[in-house]
């Protein structure tokens, strides 16, 4: 995101603090991203829709508390959405779900050279899913934000309430584990 875009976004936020109708622009801009993020975490369209509305209502209700910290406004929305997901699972006491798109999983494999000489097939997908299932939930969370939402480490740290070095370490550890399971020696760049 360019500096001009961030500045423009901050102007909209400042206007929305006085007049909530001005928030419509940000709602339109980020609705899909937040909805898809919630859909990946619930795998239910209705639930994702409800949580998405709640996320934007919460954002509007607490807009006066929002402070610019050098991150795009979307990071704040993701943080609220992540809290909504946690609340949802606490309330329903169910297993956390990560519904990943096949195309994005392929990207993750290609980017991190996890592909072995056997090529991309159903067996590889099954293996990868099995390994992802064995990873701790907090590692899946950082991988999901890094590779499925294309967030940088500063944003991941802000969203998951941790330090930037903690987010990096968690990502590298998760990738190392995956690589070990796939017997790949190349390092993550």
């Amino acid at each position: 995101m360019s500096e001009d875009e961030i500045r423009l976004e901050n102007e909209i936020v400042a206007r929305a603090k006085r007049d909530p109708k001005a928030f419509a622009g940000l709602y339109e801009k980020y609705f899909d991203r937040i909805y898809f993020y919630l859909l990946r975490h619930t795998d239910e369209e209705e639930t994702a829709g409800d949580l998405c509305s709640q996320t934007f209502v919460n954002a509007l209700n607490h807009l006066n508390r929002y402070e610019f910290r050098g991150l795009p406004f979307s990071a704040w929305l993701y943080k609220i959405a992540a809290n909504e997901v946690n609340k949802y699972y606490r309330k329903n006491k169910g297993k956390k779900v990560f519904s990943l798109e096949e195309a994005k999983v392929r990207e993750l494999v290609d980017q991190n050279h996890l592909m072995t000489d056997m090529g991309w097939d159903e067996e590889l997908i099954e293996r990868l899913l099995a390994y992802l299932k064995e990873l701790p939930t907090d590692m899946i969370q950082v991988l999901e934000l890094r590779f499925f939402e294309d967030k940088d480490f500063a944003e991941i740290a802000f969203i998951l309430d941790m330090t930037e070095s903690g987010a990096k370490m968690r990502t590298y550890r998760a990738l190392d584990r995956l690589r070990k399971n796939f017997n790949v020696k190349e390092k993550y760049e």
Partner: protein
Amino acid sequence: MSKHEIRLRRQRLTARGSDRFRNYGAVLQRHERDMRLKKILRVFTLFLVILIILVLIVIVVRIEKKAVKKNTTTSYTLSQKVAS
């Protein structure tokens, strides 16, 4: 047993699926309702605090009055005894 489940979604996520949930009017309405409730709660809390302070003042004044009355009665009895 792992604490999460991984599912694979074969189709890409498209804007079409999200459109039926997109409704800024409803979000704005909920926000306004929440703000109204917040305002009512704030006024009620303020009223409650004022009420508690008033009740405390009344209690303190009554206790003080009682103490003053007791003092006057004691000193009156003493002066009567001295006079007799």
